[in-house]
């Protein structure tokens, strides 16, 4: 089956070459980081997690988002998703691999990473995150590959796959819940210390994951004979828009409880992220334009996605999904983690700016994810087209 | 076999390259290192055989016992010799010639311990 990935058009190989180039450049930056230490990044004593962990958090959501395609098909027997379910599973594989790479990139002593297994610590949420992420990767590899392979052979998948499919559904919820628990259980970090964090994570995940998938599916439609199908698209629009609306509702709830209660430590980070935080006569607002844009872009995206559906316009659909994805990426892939450190528990403000090597490594991990995604999708689409045509 | 004209020579070259260190060194007996032992003492905390094989196990036991359980920082051998349960202050106080003791064996066995990233080697003055 894998041989399908080695037969492609010129455009396919150009795309692969571009991704490999980005990975190579990032690899060189990682060598620098390896030799110099994490001090090469913009992280500091006060903002001790940066772009790596925020991308990790966001991508856990993208991985969990695949659930929105798997669940209707396998649990509710929603046949229209039959053609794209595999795309959801493969996207989860690429996203989880990216997550693991970001974690490794962020470790001060990556060679000791297996200490987590050597000295298992059930009280630590990071231990559980390691368990659920690796488990989810395995589940999706098993399900995705087994199902596609049976399709390749023209038979129905074997019964032994079924328990894994059903297990992968609650497991998807667990990966993002545990990731939220990394943050939501820390006293003194008031922005994160909210019971609604896991639900918020899930809502944004169920919008961002399918949105990214739909964009990619539309690109595939333009370049191949593969078709998602109008009914499936409409259903995806419903899922994405509802999840995005719930995400913004949760955000509004956070704002209410902070600003109506006037509880100072609940307001600081929101001030810093959305309006600018005043401290000792200076205003700290380096993330404000992004966070405000995130809200505006997200709301425009939601309005537009309904319009796109009524007009049956794939272009508008793609753009609105892009807007929603971008909005959620800013909210979670930027503000969520970085904002939680500002102000620090002593009330001091340190602003964080990523460095060039840090951005290079981040880009390389994303490129690796897209490389895996491209290869897996190439195989999946080739198999599907071979059977259908 | 299809393409056997290329595959078989390629395989031979591959196997040859992979086993290069074996046949390059064949017949040349490597001399085990001769360690410089401390002259002040004749006895270590455990017998030489144990120390040769398991000194890292011992160091890890000391570390975990002292750090986590506030265990004793010194010990006594069967013959009554007092010693510090510490790499930097125990072992190295006798085996201060790191180059001719630790490094000799570690080089020979191609082991690269990272003890010295944190722990301080005895300085020239100490020797």
């Amino acid at each position, binding site marked *: 089956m894998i041989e399908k990935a080695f037969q492609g058009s010129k455009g396919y190989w150009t795309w692969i070459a571009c991704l490999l180039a980005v990975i190579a450049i990032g690899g060189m930056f990682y060598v620098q980081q390896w030799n110099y230490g994490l*001090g090469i990044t913009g992280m500091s*004593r006060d903002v001790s997690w940066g772009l790596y962990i925020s991308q990790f958090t966001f991508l856990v959501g993208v991985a969990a988002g695949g659930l929105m395609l798997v669940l209707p098909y396998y649990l509710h027997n929603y046949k229209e998703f039959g053609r794209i379910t595999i795309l959801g599973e493969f996207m989860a594989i690429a996203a989880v691999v990216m997550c693991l790479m970001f974690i490794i990139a962020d470790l*001060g002593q990556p060679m000791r990473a297996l*200490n987590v297994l050597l000295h298992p610590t059930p009280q*630590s949420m990071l231990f559980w995150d390691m368990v659920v992420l690796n488990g989810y990767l395995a589940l999706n590899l098993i399900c995705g590959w087994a199902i596609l392979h049976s399709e390749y052979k023209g038979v129905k998948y074997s019964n032994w796959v079924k328990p894994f499919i059903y297990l992968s559904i609650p497991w998807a919820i667990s990966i993002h819940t545990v990731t939220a628990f990394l943050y939501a259980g820390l*006293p003194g970090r008031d922005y994160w210390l909210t019971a609604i964090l896991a639900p918020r994570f899930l809502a944004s995940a169920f919008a961002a994951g399918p949105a990214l998938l739909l964009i990619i599916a539309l690109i595939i439609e333009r370049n191949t004979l593969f078709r998602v199908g109008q009914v499936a698209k409409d259903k995806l629009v419903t899922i994405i828009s509802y999840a995005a609306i719930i995400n913004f509702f949760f955000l509004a709830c956070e704002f209410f409880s902070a600003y109506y209660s006037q509880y100072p430590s609940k307001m600081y980070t929101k001030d810093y992220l959305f309006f600018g935080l005043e401290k000792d006569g200076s205003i700290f607002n380096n993330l404000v334009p992004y966070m405000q844009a995130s809200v505006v872009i997200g709301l425009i995206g939601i309005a537009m996605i309904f319009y796109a559906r009524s007009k049956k316009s794939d272009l508008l659909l793609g753009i609105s999904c892009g807007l929603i994805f971008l909005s959620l990426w800013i909210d979670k892939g930027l503000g969520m983690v970085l904002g939680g450190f500002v102000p620090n*528990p*002593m009330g001091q403000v340190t602003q964080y700016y990523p460095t060039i090597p840090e951005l290079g490594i981040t880009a390389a991990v994303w490129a690796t994810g897209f490389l895996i995604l491209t290869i897996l999708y190439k195989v999946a689409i080739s198999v599907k087209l071979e059977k259908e045509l | 076999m299809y393409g056997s004209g290329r595959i078989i020579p390629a395989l031979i070259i591959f196997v040859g390259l992979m086993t290069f260190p074996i046949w390059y060194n064949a017949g040349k007996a490597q001399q085990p290192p001769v360690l410089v032992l401390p002259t002040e003492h004749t006895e270590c905390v455990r017998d030489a055989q144990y120390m040769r094989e398991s000194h890292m196990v011992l160091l890890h036991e000391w*570390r975990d016992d002292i750090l986590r359980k506030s265990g004793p920082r010194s010990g006594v051998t069967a013959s009554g010799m007092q010693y510090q349960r510490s790499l930097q202050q125990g072992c190295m106080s006798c085996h201060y010639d790191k180059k001719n003791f630790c490094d000799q064996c570690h080089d020979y066995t191609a082991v690269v311990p990272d003890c010295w990233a*944190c722990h301080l080697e005895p300085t020239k003055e100490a020797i």
Partner: protein
Amino acid sequence: MKKDRRDFLKLAGCAAVAGVGSSTAFHSLLRGEAEAAGLRRAGTKKEKTGVRLGMVIDIQKFLDDQDLARRCIRVCHQIHNVPEFGNPKDEIKWLWTDRFEHVFVKDTHYRQAQHLQGMPVLTLCNHCDNPPCVRACPTKATFKKADGIVGMDYHRCIGCRFCMAACPYGARSFNWRDPRGMDEHGRSFIRELNPDYPARTMGVVEKCNFCSKRLAQGKLPACVEEAAGAEAMFFGDLNDPNSEVSRVLREKFTIQRRPSLGTYPSVFYII
């Protein structure tokens, strides 16, 4: 059978997982044990047995001797081979001073006594009785010892920095670069190596350990010894009514840093 809140939560968690024992947890709530235990815990340690080492810092004494804090920090950082990078981004601190309003976050209290504003207050790891950093660590590289000290094993730390996010006192520092290295002028980050103590390696977290090694030798922590002449710091077993810290805590009004977080700090301040 007595249960405090943590035990109750553990029980409830197990019950939820098992999905059978919910009635037990519910009965425990009905009897009001969880609530009563929580209130009772507002003291020092849930079990007032065994050793719990702690410290009292008299900040007025540091006001009287403006140089004392600097001397304490210097001796601490010197004997523990703490590097100096000369910038706040890479900074490593075991013992340091911060402004009063940062150490005791004031939020809305803007009418505090003038002399307290900006006053440098000595601060360090609080060796909490209920430490969030120990809970967070995924490898048990940081742990709570029987004597109350929150210890660290630098050999095991993977550098994930979860503990730094978890610590509400900013007591943990990460080795962003090689502490044994040199700056661009060829000056070592560790000015003067203390041969009796190890240094650390790049990529691990470190912090104050209440001078565990000196304690094992029967000495006081270095900072306490330095401040002994000024009677500015006290150290001892909080659970021993005859210890010096217990005496000071009985006689003076003291506060803790952010007690509302439930970390039960072992460092107390006389204001």
